[in-house]
């Protein structure tokens, strides 16, 4: 019970700090910038604010690392998708395509 209260107080304090600090954003606001940050689409000032939040927030730091790894895994798992070509293209499909051309 006491530890739950402690955790609650810590979160309340963190929320208060993020909302009150100069040029700081909350974690919820941070979320809106993630894609643009990773694609270099933020202004210098926005990037500085984003990175300032990252330095102070463990949860967002770890979240971003896991998010990045997710994208890496997704892209690597499907790299060169055209190499995964089905070998069994049915002849009747080829014939149907060619017949349709004649019509």
């Amino acid at each position, binding site marked *: 019970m006491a530890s739950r209260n402690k955790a609650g107080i810590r*979160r*309340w304090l*963190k*929320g*208060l700090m*993020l*909302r009150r600090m100069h040029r700081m954003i*909350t*974690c*919820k*606001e*941070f*979320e809106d910038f*993630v*894609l*643009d940050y990773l694609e270099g689409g933020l202004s210098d000032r926005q990037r500085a604010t984003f990175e300032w939040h990252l330095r102070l*927030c*463990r*949860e*967002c730091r*770890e*979240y971003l*690392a*896991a*998010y990045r*790894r*997710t*994208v*890496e*895994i*997704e*892209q*690597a*798992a*499907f790299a060169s*998708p*055209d190499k*995964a*070509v*089905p*070998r069994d*293209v*049915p002849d009747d*499909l*080829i014939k*149907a*395509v*060619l017949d*349709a*051309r*004649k019509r």
Partner: protein
Amino acid sequence: MPDEPSPPKAAASAQAPRNGTADAEQLVRKHIGWMLALSERILRDRGLAEDAVQEAFADAFRGLERFEGRSSLKTWLHRITVNASLTKLRQLKRLAEQPIDEYLPEFDQYECRIEAPWTHLTPLEDALESEVLRARVSEAIEALSDSYRIVLQLRDIEGYNTKEVSALLGISESNVKVRVHRARAALKKLLEPILRGEVR
């Protein structure tokens, strides 16, 4: 509804058959394999993919006379195949936006992120070495509704940029970005057992 891709212009290309059944058959045999695979990745159904590829070739043959080789024939056919496959998805009403909230990041009432501590983050190489893990990645992508899966497919896997995806899907660029981010965040949640090293 995205615009029908216009045939590439500029210098005439020897890649495109001008006339004759033999040329057409050569073109079909050369490209149908990867076009079918592409369409099947989008539609997740072999039968529908075969229909879409037939329609893609019909579109291609109609536009071929005007094909002049501004981009490669393959790039042009790729776009036509994506369009034909997306048209099928639309006809099946599978592109409507579905709720994805259960997979999205959570925040408390103070707008602080709720994220369990990460004591382990699986290295990329480890995740890709295992066929089991690869299968899990495919399953996770399949678990997303089509409206989110398709933006990941087009952007992260097929290599289209935000503007191109916006044109293909007929939605704004900002909507594409929102969907890409949400889809990736949802994918992260679905892949967490792998990322945390709980599945090997």
